[in-house]
């Protein structure tokens, strides 16, 4: 099985993406709602005809609009698994999987093998209506694999399950996908899916690839606002203004300077991002005195309380990025007497701020 190469544009939905997934690799596709994740899945599976696209798996061309190639859904050999397992209700579990393997003479034997593979052998004779959500999704996985696709597209396969169902299905997917030799595209909004299943992550924002890279890098040092939000860190965009210095660029106000530690060599004038954890942010009512620290005056947009910890979220940044977040204890929140709408100072120590080039090198 070969590498999946995708380059597709669907102007009607504002989508223009380009990425590759190696054989045996799981690429997580993240992004806010409406960023084009499901459109990407539809284009890969052939449900949607892109205006311009070249899609290849190994040496096989599935779509090439320039040459008029558009392999129909049933000949693409791209397996698709959705949030809704969509098991055929008029067939038994075994019948569903056998349907996928029917081009083989021993389809039923193969189907039983695949059911065993997903720990669902004992469900073979049941009708889909008698399965739990997690069981149905496991059968859907067996069915998708039984068709022997050249690539798998999983569009939020765990989103419809409860926590327990999702975690056992995630473990099942992990076991199956780790040994699998085909490229897998996993669309998700769950951090656990990314951590547990994916090799690389791609962040889609407004139909474009905002960043792509190894999961650990994207989570540790996101370059996109969504990636930052997803990883639970703050992200400030700007350009390199000097050694260890980043200056934000916004039309409405003079740029704010951020001082941090360059994680990689940075050239002055290049696009860069400053990344820091909410826990590194201290909140003050008055401007603190002292040595070179990053201080920024913000208006409190919201207070989220979760298990004794409080996240103070500021208004959106001047360039439209999501508001900075500070993690404080409930105790200090009470001492400061903070409320939504008040103006406070967020300060972050220089050594807590990582500066990265925007646009991942080599990705």
């Amino acid at each position, binding site marked *: 099985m070969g590498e999946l190469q995708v380059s597709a544009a669907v102007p009607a939905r504002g989508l223009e993406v380009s990425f590759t997934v190696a054989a045996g690799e799981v690429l997580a596709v993240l992004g806010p709602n409406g960023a084009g994740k499901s459109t990407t899945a539809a284009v890969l599976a052939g449900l949607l005809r892109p205006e311009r696209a070249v899609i290849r798996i190994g040496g096989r061309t599935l779509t090439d609009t320039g040459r008029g190639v558009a392999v129909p859904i049933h000949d693409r050999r791209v397996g698709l698994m959705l949030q809704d397992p969509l098991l055929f209700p008029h067939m038994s579990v075994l019948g569903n999987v056998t349907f996928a393997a029917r081009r083989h003479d021993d389809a039923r034997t193969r189907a039983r093998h695949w059911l065993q593979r997903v720990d669902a052998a004992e469900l073979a004779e049941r*009708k889909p*209506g008698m399965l739990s959500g997690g069981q149905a999704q496991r059968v859907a996985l067996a069915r998708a694999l039984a068709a022997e696709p050249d690539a798998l597209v999983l569009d939020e396969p765990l989103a419809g399950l409860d926590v327990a169902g999702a975690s056992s299905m995630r473990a099942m997917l992990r076991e199956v996908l780790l040994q699998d030799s085909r490229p897998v595209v996993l669309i998700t909004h769950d951090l656990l899916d990314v951590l547990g299943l994916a090799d690389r992550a791609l962040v889609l924002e407004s139909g474009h690839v905002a960043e792509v890279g190894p999961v650990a890098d994207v989570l540790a040092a996101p370059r996109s606002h969504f990636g930052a939000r997803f990883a639970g860190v703050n992200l400030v965009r700007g350009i390199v203004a000097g050694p260890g210095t980043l200056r934000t660029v916004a039309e409405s106000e003079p740029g704010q300077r951020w001082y941090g530690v360059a994680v990689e060599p940075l050239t002055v004038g290049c696009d860069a991002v400053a990344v820091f954890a909410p826990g590194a942010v201290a909140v003050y009512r008055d401007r603190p005195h002292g040595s070179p620290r990053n201080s920024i005056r913000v208006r409190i947009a919201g207070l989220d309380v979760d298990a004794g910890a409080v996240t103070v979220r500021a208004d959106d940044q001047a360039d439209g990025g999501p508001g900075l977040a500070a993690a404080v204890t409930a105790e200090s929140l009470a001492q400061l007497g903070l409320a939504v709408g008040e103006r406070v100072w967020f300060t972050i120590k220089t050594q807590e701020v990582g500066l990265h080039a925007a646009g991942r090198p080599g990705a």
Partner: protein
Amino acid sequence: MRPGNPATLPRWVYLPAAAGAVFVVLPLVALAVNVDWADFGALVSSPASRAALLLSLRTAGASTLLCLILGVPLALVLARQHGRVAGLLRPLILVPLVLPPVVGGIALLYVFGRLGLLGQYLEAAGIRVAFTTTAVVLAQTFVSLPFLVIALEGAARTVGTGYDTVAATLGARPAAVWWRVTLPLLAPGLLSGAVLAFARALGEFGATLTFAGSRQGVTRTLPLEIYLQREIDPGAAVALSILLIAVAAIVVLGLGWRRLSGWNAPVGTGG
């Protein structure tokens, strides 16, 4: 209070509701009490009655089959196509529902009659349609088709295209999807649509009389025989009416109202 207890309805609603029920049931009761039950067997087994009943069953069966052959593809095309042609076609398909059957019969004559649009060519080829048993089947199909199409189109929309799509991603060609997924999933709608079409065909009168006439054993179906007997022998007309009701009831209650066992009707579709 039990869930779904209709106590929330205003009380006066029950009055028109009861009146409506009585209005539907009372004529049937009136028929039943006026039947000469002692002679019922003899009345419904006369050669003319038997010929009419057999012809009705044969033609209604044939027209139901024709409705399925034409109506299933039509319903699926209407359910899946969102273009302007489908939008224009949908109301046109429903015209026979609101058209007086006699008008439908006349219209069919202008198509299949000796001088009709198609009839003149058929006549030249030595094929005569009007006033034959074929005409009965065509008349019944004309009035029944919309019932099947409506029932099936609704069912097809409810099922959606999710299952078909998944089947295609599993490598099934469109024909395989049609036979193994699309049609089986539509089975409940197919059954109720076919039952509706059969019942409508069984009761068809106006279009049949206009387009096929009333020849015993050839085009005189049970409703036509009833109308004829009403002039000659009202007792026989009532007995035959009861017979027609019984046949319709057996078909409708026996087949249509029973859910297919084994699986629940699919709900919703995925992304």
